[in-house]
């Protein structure tokens, strides 16, 4: 649809408040031959239990239903893998359900878990996500990923998902980036930042100390995207426990309020129709009147340059959490940096910057933990985990990992979870000598965006410290 009814624009009103109690994750890597998926899932669960000083048995006693995010059955050729996991976690005969929405699977899993608590069906739920992309070589992996595009109209074209994405990157690059060398450098900066933050994360698959030149000189994948602009293919698991207020405070002293929403758009970019830009609370229709003049070719919305699904998810989530301006109301974000350029597109879709001006978020230095221009804390640090470019993209786990990460910041426990020498050793990784604490001091509210493919599904999850709730606007 290209026009929305009042009913469709309703800001979700849940029956009960929902809280994030704890979360955990496994190690992430390109291949983990020594462990079955069940073992990785148990690693994530044990970390979540330990985080609130519970034994696995104690935590399991509270769980009433389970939500499992796993996207690509083809890779492991195991249908109903969710049942395998559920059994190995010893959670039979509780109800469980599998969720798959491509790259947004992790976020969608939280969305389902959230609604189960909000409705009163369960007081406590497990949302667990995982992916195993090491069970075929890269070439076959590319084909499997490409089968998430339209089987008849797209997949036969090269069997390469990056290609279906790259046409959008090319359009954004020419229209909004104006093919400027300075814009290309800004894209590279995102990769340098995220690979660099991954160095502080023992879970991360691809920590790298690199420069803008390294990114610009890395092999071309599909112009303007180069190898270091692209996300990883990973193996790993992550989980969160959500609960209603009463149970959450039984389990921990500091649960965080959670709000999750979802949006979608056509699987084939081809099917996107021209429409008006739906506005976020910090925008006016007037500001986009001359968008096509400022950026010739940029007047078609969302065209091949915006993600309507992200905009809709942000619209609902901001309404639910009372957010007016993400730059002012949030303290950090974890975004779905599948590619450096899509990271910039997302800044605009979720209103961090207006359409056409996404690059300024990076160029202002405000997306950094410490703003390199001012030496002061960045106003809205992004992807301190390393993101999909530096940390991981174990599809079903990705959106959950993001929420665990932003939660650790609000809890003020980021350093505890990332500095621990024993963890670095357990993952067979070397903690860098210049390891830096990336804790966002005083973080109260944060956002995670989980995104599928060319924008077919996007979820937005907002975490809020209960002492710092915003007023929901009517």
């Amino acid at each position, binding site marked *: 649809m290209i026009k929305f009814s009042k009913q469709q624009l309703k800001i979700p009103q849940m029956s009960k408040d929902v809280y994030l109690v704890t979360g955990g994750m496994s190690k992430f890597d390109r291949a983990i031959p020594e462990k079955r998926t069940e073992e990785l899932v148990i690693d994530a669960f044990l970390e979540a239990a330990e985080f609130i000083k519970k034994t696995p048995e104690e935590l399991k006693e509270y769980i009433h239903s389970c939500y499992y995010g796993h996207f690509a059955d083809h890779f492991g050729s195991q249908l109903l893998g969710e049942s395998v996991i559920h059994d190995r976690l010893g959670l039979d005969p509780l109800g469980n359900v599998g969720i798959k929405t491509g790259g947004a699977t992790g976020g969608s899993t939280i969305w389902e878990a959230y609604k189960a608590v909000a409705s009163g069906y369960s007081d406590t739920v497990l949302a667990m996500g995982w992916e195993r992309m090491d069970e075929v070589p890269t070439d076959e992996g*590319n*084909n499997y990923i490409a089968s998430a595009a339209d089987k008849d*109209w*797209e997949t036969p*074209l090269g069997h*390469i998902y990056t290609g279906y994405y790259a046409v959008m990157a090319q359009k954004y690059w020419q229209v909004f980036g104006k093919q400027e060398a300075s814009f290309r450098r800004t894209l590279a900066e995102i990769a340098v930042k995220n690979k660099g933050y991954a160095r502080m994360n023992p879970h991360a698959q691809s920590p790298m100390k690199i420069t803008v030149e390294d990114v610009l000189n890395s092999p071309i994948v599909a112009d303007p995207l180069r190898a270091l602009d692209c996300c990883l293919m990973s193996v790993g698991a992550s989980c969160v426990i959500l609960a209603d207020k009463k149970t959450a405070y039984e389990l921990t002293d500091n649960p965080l309020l959670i709000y999750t929403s979802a949006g979608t758009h056509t699987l084939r970019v081809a099917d996107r129709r021209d429409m008006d830009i739906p506005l976020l609370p910090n925008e006016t229709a007037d500001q986009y009147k001359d968008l096509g003049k400022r950026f010739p070719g940029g007047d078609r919305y969302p065209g091949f340059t915006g993600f309507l699904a992200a905009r809709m998810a942000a619209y609902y989530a901001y309404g639910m959490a009372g957010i007016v301006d993400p730059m002012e109301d949030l303290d950090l974000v974890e975004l779905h940096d599948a590619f450096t350029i899509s990271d910039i597109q997302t800044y605009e879709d979720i209103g961090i910057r207006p359409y056409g001006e996404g690059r300024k978020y990076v160029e202002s230095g405000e997306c950094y933990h410490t703003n390199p221009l001012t030496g002061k804390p960045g106003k809205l640090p992004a992807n301190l985990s390393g993101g999909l470019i530096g940390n991981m993209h174990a599809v079903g786990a990705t959106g959950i990992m993001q929420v665990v990460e932003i939660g650790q910041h609000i809890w003020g426990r980021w350093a505890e979870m990332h500095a621990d020498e024993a963890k670095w050793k357990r993952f067979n990784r070397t903690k860098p000598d210049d390891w830096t604490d990336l804790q966002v001091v005083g973080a109260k509210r944060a956002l995670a965006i989980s995104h599928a493919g060319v924008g077919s599904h996007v979820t937005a999850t907002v975490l809020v410290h209960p002492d710092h709730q915003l007023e929901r606007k009517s």
Partner: protein
Amino acid sequence: MTVENRGTVKVENGRYRVSGNFSYGYPNSPIRDESGKLVGITNPADITHIHTYGGEAPFFESLSKQKLLGTKCANPKCETYGSVYIPYRIHCPDCLMRCEEIDLTELARKGATVHTFMITERTGAFNTLKKPIRFVNVEFDGVSTILMGYLSVGEPKMGMKVVPIFQAKNPTYTILDLSWVPMGTDAADLPEGFSF
């Protein structure tokens, strides 16, 4: 390993009738680490699937006849009545009434416009296109959507005019039977099996 008697399918009385082999089993092999310890096994598989085009079948058939079909909402009560779609949509996405088929061949031959494009050397398993691949997403006047395809001659550029070419000789009955070339391309320069 050569595959003999690869499976084929017919429809008779509304049912699939299959003949030949649809799956080929191969022995698995162990995966070991440096010390010789067993880690896992390989799972070889070769399976032929059966797939229906359903209501989109006319589109894929028409490519082999050098025709480009789209569809149009023909429900005057629909909010987006008259919208034209390619990719071919069987039902209108708004009113869900069955769309009317329309022939877009002549419109396309007058020149479609490249909305965006990309060039890549990378492909996935089973790719049959020549590398580098040049995807083009083409706009047509009066059409609501922007079709993805590939350019077979020249270098893509936004705003350039392209025309369709069709693999009428030995068609594959897939989207690969449709390709694009810059307007004014000589028939002699088209890839083997393709014509305007």
